């Protein structure tokens, strides 16, 4: 039995020690920001591709299924409270080859696509609505033209590269500059999200069509926008009143997982978090952030559907899914654009846009912060070249890793916005692989959940010394139960991705890219291992625990 000590009965010696810089509340914020309250796919992809699916229940289901995965990370983080996250957890429990292949492919390579998505979010959900709203408020065609520019491939590519470049320069100049920015982002996003919720929740549903029409007219579009959009969707064969579908609701969850699977991203920075070894702190940081974000996303779905109605939600989805030409000057009807349009107020426009712009930009910071640390760890392990891990004496940051990641993101940005394959009905765009990054990062999270399940058996000492060892069910480690549950739920998500064309990953292109990235990573590991061995370095030493006895 154990109880908390009022005054710890220990003798402490005056000595130097490690000081961690990130408070649990900062890590909590970091996770909420990483999960991206602004990620929009659930709200249009699901109604477009999954008629009969219930958004709110799909989001809450994704949140519920993510909880055991997040709990698994809580145990792992308290057992290994140091920087590295998935790569450390998997390499310690599953071995170096598995860890490198999964994390290098699923994270380091696929997260390059998140750099592209961040640029797309910035252009399409940040700048475009800003200029659209300002155009409607001022009657300026130049603003509307600017808004349209940010929905074109050229506009998105320029924005994406600029976005990645600015983030790289900020992070290279020092981590503290980012942390300072994070506070501003946090406030701006909360204000933006709250503004959007208030607008959607307080506007009478009966008033929405007229407001959308007025907004459309103000930007030089059709004054009967709503009726035109409904007619276009019906002409495109879209059923605006589908019956409830359990399967479609289930398939909403993997799309919502695009946000909620990032509940545990702070584990990449465990070495910088105060009380990282505390079970309660880690539960607050990861599970707490997950529940808060899940509830907020479900709330947004609820007020969106309440405001515009289920029928018009399918119209908006049809525009995004390509079944009908439904857009406002090139912008699809994302929740923030609908809120901007029905408010039609310059202050509301700026408040909503500021949050989306900052959150979109923050995503690329997360990509760099997390992946450069993983690359440093892989470089120290001699699986990436030594120069990747060089840290600038002036800035105390891994400049080379940042530059490499920025350069590698440019071709992915180009592919995401321009690549098409095939002809006619068989045409496949890279955009259809948007959720490929959810799938790829998903298999990393599943493997880590499995590592959590195996923790008491494969890393016995670290587990027994951790506070999580106190939690058992009939003597059986609780982490094994939640880890297996989390891995099983994750496998269900992965299976749904691979077998349902509505999620975009069943094309030949998708299979080739997903499989190719995995094979490339495995080959890299084997080649690096062989070359290092010839140079007298055994990369296995980086992962293998020395037996103490």
């Amino acid at each position, binding site marked *: *039995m*154990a*109880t*908390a*000590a009022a005054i*710890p*009965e*220990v*003798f*402490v*010696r*005056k*000595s*130097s*020690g*490690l*000081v*961690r*810089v990130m408070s649990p509340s900062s890590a909590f914020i970091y996770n909420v920001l990483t999960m991206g309250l602004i990620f929009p796919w659930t709200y249009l992809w699901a109604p477009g591709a999954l008629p009969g699916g219930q958004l709110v229940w799909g989001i809450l289901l994704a949140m519920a299924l993510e909880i055991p995965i997040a709990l698994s990370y809580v145990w792992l983080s308290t*057992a*290994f*409270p*140091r920087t590295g996250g998935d790569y450390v957890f998997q390499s310690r429990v599953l071995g170096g080859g598995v860890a490198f292949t999964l994390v290098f492919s699923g994270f380091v390579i696929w997260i390059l696509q998140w750099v592209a998505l961040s640029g797309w979010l910035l252009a399409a959900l940040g700048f475009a609505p800003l200029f659209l709203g300002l155009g409607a408020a001022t009657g300026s065609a130049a603003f509307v033209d600017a808004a349209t520019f940010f929905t074109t491939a050229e506009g998105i590519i320029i924005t994406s590269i600029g976005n990645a470049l600015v983030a790289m320069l900020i992070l290279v100049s*020092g*981590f*503290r500059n980012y*942390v*300072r920015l994070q*506070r501003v982002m946090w406030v701006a996003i909360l204000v933006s999200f709250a503004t959007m919720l208030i607008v959607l929740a307080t506007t009478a549903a009966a008033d929405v069509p007229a407001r959308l029409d007025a907004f459309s007219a103000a930007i030089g579009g059709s004054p009967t926008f709503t009726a035109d959009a409904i007619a276009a969707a019906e002409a495109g064969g879209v059923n605006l009143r589908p019956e409830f579908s359990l399967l479609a609701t289930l398939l909403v969850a993997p799309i919502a997982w695009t946000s909620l699977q990032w509940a545990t991203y702070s584990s990449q920075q465990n*070495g*910088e978090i105060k009380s990282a*070894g505390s079970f309660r702190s880690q539960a607050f940081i990861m599970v707490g952030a997950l529940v808060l974000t899940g509830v907020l996303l479900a709330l947004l779905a609820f007020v969106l559907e309440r405001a515009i109605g289920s029928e018009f939600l399918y119209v908006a989805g049809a525009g995004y899914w390509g079944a009908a030409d439904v857009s406002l000057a090139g912008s699809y009807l994302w929740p923030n654009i609908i809120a901007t349009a029905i408010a039609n107020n310059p202050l509301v426009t700026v408040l909503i846009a500021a949050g989306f712009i900052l959150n979109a930009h923050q995503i690329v910071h997360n990509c760099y912060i997390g992946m450069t640390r993983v690359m440093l760890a892989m470089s*120290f*392990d*001699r699986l990436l070249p030594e120069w990747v*891990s*060089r*840290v*600038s*004496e002036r800035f*105390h940051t891994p400049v080379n890793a940042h530059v490499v990641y920025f350069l590698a993101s440019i071709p992915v940005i180009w592919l995401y916005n321009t690549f098409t394959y095939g002809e006619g009905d068989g045409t496949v765009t890279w955009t259809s692989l948007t959720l490929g990054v959810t799938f790829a990062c998903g298999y990393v999270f599943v493997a880590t959940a499995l590592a959590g399940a195996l923790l008491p058996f494969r890393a016995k*000492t*670290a587990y*027994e*010394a951790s*506070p999580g060892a106190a939690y058992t069910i009939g003597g059986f480690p609780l982490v094994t139960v939640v880890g297996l549950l989390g891995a099983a739920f994750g496998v269900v998500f992965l299976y749904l991705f691979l077998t349902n064309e509505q999620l975009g990953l069943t094309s030949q292109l998708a299979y080739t890219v997903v499989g190719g990235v995995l094979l490339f990573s495995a080959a890299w590991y084997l080649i690096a291992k062989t*070359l290092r061995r*010839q*140079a*007298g*370095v055994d*990369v296995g*030493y*980086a992962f*293998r*625990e*020395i*037996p*103490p*006895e």
Partner: protein
Amino acid sequence: MPLFGRRGSAKETTLFFATDVHGSERTWRKFLNAAAFYRADVLVMGGDVMGKLAIPIIREAPGRYRATIHGRVERLETEQEVQRARERIGALGFYDVVMDEDEYAATRADEQAVDRLWRDLATERLARWIELAEERLGPKGIRCYVSGGNDDLLEVMDTLPREGTRSFVGVEGQATPIDDQHVIVSLPYVNPTPWHTPREAPEEELSRMIDAALAGVTGFDHAIFNFHAPPKDSTLDTCPLLDASTDPPSQVVRGGQPVLHGAGSTAVREAIARYQPLLGLHGHIHEAQAAARIGRTLCVNPGSEYGEGVLRGVLVHLSDGKVRSYQMTTG
């Protein structure tokens, strides 16, 4: 000749370096086993071998004890539970001592008694570690060179030099050959810290200590500096800036954010820049695992995670006055 292999036939020395184990039984045992595990010829311990926390196992009644571990009071009802608790405490890098209630209260109230307790516990553990080193490494003919760091009490470290050991070599403040080619020079002192630890010195004095330790050393291209303090602003020393006017020291926050800085020594940096040794081995800043070059000298801080029972280290292959390769390890 292999395509990416090593050239030349000069004898190669494989050195394994770890540091800042802070009393952790588990990491010390791993350190001794690292020689066989990594096929190293030489082991070097960079300092801070003493623990920071002692946990009294307080006897409440015959067969009933309590101990505060991880901030929680654990009740121990059997000798087996006591033994398991002692093992856990040792793995975490702490000392344990079994005391009656009265003895604990008296010790706690007497600062000198606490000092004596620290000295006795650390000396006893160090002696046991030396015996273990002799037992495990002696038959294999592997040498283990050990220096202290700033957190180690002088009176405890005075017991390092031993007569008649086969493997264990205490090397504080002196130059010691480790093979036919290389010499290691060790310095446990560091520049002043906000904690005012036992072995700190102003930069000028540190400079004099370095010069004294280097007296008689020739051929710096085969010299290894095992200086506990990392060189200033080398990335081996990046950590939060602390305010020394508070007890314990607190983070300096500007613009709402902690300020990071290089806490290393300018004297160490100047010595490396001036003498250009083959290799610099450093510790002290646990969170700053890094490698950097100052001129021709490769400087490495493998960092420390002793609290989790993880032995961080670096494996370095040396020959012909060159570092052929190095690899950070997490054992």
